[in-house]
């Protein structure tokens, strides 16, 4: 009887804790969603109602969208951003796959040293390197070009290498040994055994790098300031003029340019969650 009582009390306490936890999560989530939601809603308000505190307008309008699409090179900017994000993602992936495989398979004597250097490089703030990187890029004549946007960002591949290395190291050694006894050359081990086994990890790293690069602000701002060559994040500044900020246009453009990333999320939300959880990044 007493036992049952205690059991019931414990279940009760657990249920209360569960409710409290979910309440907290809901509050945090709402706090995070609110600005985005307000932005999207505001983009449908006519200009004279932009500062109104009512979430919905009595006369919703698409004028800001029309304005953004006609006066703002939305396709061009999304295209530029996509080329940059995809180029950086694929480039980092190539470096990470080859680097992780070489470190795991050939186990060079400097493996420990290389891993230490890679880890240290993660701790260097990118802002500390930005001036020499910019000068180098300028000397190479890569300003306002895809090369300038992509190549210097490949220098930050350490995280991708370390993430993939974990997965290569986690492969059972007997698998690689079996391949050796089957007469594989290293290239074939990589291609026929390691890559197929790593497919989920590779997808995760690709998405992770793609999204991070899509949201990159400082580097495109420096290297490709010209409106026609730049990325979405920089292009949005065009709505801040001397006469003040055109919030309707800005929010409509921001909503439009979030759509591609939203599509990526919808298609691969599971993979993205895994990727971020694995990398330990928020």
């Amino acid at each position, binding site marked *: 009887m007493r036992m049952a009582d205690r059991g019931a009390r414990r279940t009760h306490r657990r249920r209360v804790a569960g409710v409290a936890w979910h309440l907290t999560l809901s509050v945090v989530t709402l706090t995070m969603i609110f600005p985005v939601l307000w932005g999207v809603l505001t983009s449908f308000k006519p200009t004279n109602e932009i500062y109104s505190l009512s979430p919905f307008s009595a006369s919703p309008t698409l004028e800001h969208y029309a304005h953004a699409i006609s006066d703002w090179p939305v396709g061009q900017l999304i295209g530029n951003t996509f080329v940059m994000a995809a180029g950086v993602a694929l480039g980092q992936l190539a470096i990470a796959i080859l680097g992780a495989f070489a470190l795991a398979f050939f186990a060079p004597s400097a493996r420990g040293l290389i891993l230490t250097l890679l880890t240290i490089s993660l701790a260097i703030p990118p802002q500390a390197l930005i001036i020499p990187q910019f000068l180098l890029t300028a000397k190479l004549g890569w300003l306002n070009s895809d090369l300038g946007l992509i190549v210097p960002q490949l220098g930050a591949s350490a995280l991708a290498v370390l993430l993939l290395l974990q997965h290569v190291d986690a492969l059972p050694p*007997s698998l690689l040994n*079996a391949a*050796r006894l089957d007469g594989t050359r290293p290239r074939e081990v990589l291609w*026929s055994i390691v890559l197929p086994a790593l497919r989920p990890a590779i997808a995760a790293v690709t998405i992770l790098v793609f999204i991070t690069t899509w949201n990159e602000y400082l580097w495109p701002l420096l290297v490709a300031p010209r409106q026609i060559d730049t990325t979405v994040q920089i292009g949005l500044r065009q709505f801040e003029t001397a006469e003040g900020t055109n919030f309707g246009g800005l929010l409509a453009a921001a909503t439009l340019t979030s759509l591609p990333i939203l599509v990526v999320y919808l298609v691969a939300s599971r993979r993205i969650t895994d990727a971020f959880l694995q990398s330990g990044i928020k």
Partner: protein
Amino acid sequence: MTSNTIAGDIQLVGLTKKYGSSIALDAIDLHIPAGSLTVIVGPSGCGKSTLLRVISGLETATDGELLIGGLPVADHDAGDRDVAMVFQDYALYPHMTVAANLSFGLRLQARHDRRGGPSKFDIAERVAQVGDLLGLEKLLDRKPAQLSGGQRQRVALGRAIIRRPQVLLLDEPLSALDSQLRASARGEILRLHREIGATLVLVTHDQHEALSMATHLVVMDSGTVAQSGTAETLFHSPATEFVATFVGSPAMNLQASGGGRVGWRAGDARLLGADAAGTAAPDGLLVTGITEMCEFTGNGQQVSVRDGDRNFALAQREGERWLRVGDPVRAVIAPHQLHHFDQNGIRRNV
């Protein structure tokens, strides 16, 4: 050293493997006869798996010579030694079907050597043959994850033999199977050995498995070969105390005797009648004690007898006198069934 150029013959001369300062294999001299089913057995950490990996080429010997089929292979990479291996965890390629797992090595051969390598037709035929030999015909399109433990093991065996290697190495191939499957897998390996005619080298820590399968048995102890020969030889005339206690179950009984030790097998002791207490014992070693524990083994009884502060084991067969806990025991072991060892544990023939 006699050089032997028969395919499948393995000769190890002074083979040494060190990891830093620890010695895994200590100057091993060993001949593994062509076509034998050689079982290497020993406690964990004795170097038996390392020996297998050195023969396969996955590890390089620190010193010494290794000849396979009469040829020194130290400079040959693992894939070029005409040696195949079955791994403890089978190591099947998880993303390939059974057929692709089986044919992987052959497909690589074809790609590396477009003229001399096997044709597509050859490969398909060999896959069908091996599938037939191991009863995998219906599983060829499955992935490893869809197979049972026993099926996976047969695929691993098939992948190893499809290139028709001189030597087939098996690293604890039965340890991942449950005891019922183990018996049938043992039969499968024996049958395979008969049919493919390659040299099989099998590593195990299970002395029962070793005794029952080996045509040639090698007992290893801390990086050295303690003894090698037929299972009968090792069982009936163990070269050292270590071999004596490791091979056979229950372990050989040992007791101090004249500076060294004397040993005897549980089954070799003959019980004397309880009423014979006063009569002179027949020739041989007389042991006495009180029955402490009895285990029923189906066709017999395994008995632990306490004599002062030490124990010894007896094995009673069906039809012999059955012992019960508390029974006094007087038994005698005939002189020719006693094993004498000197103070270093080396066999002494008297």
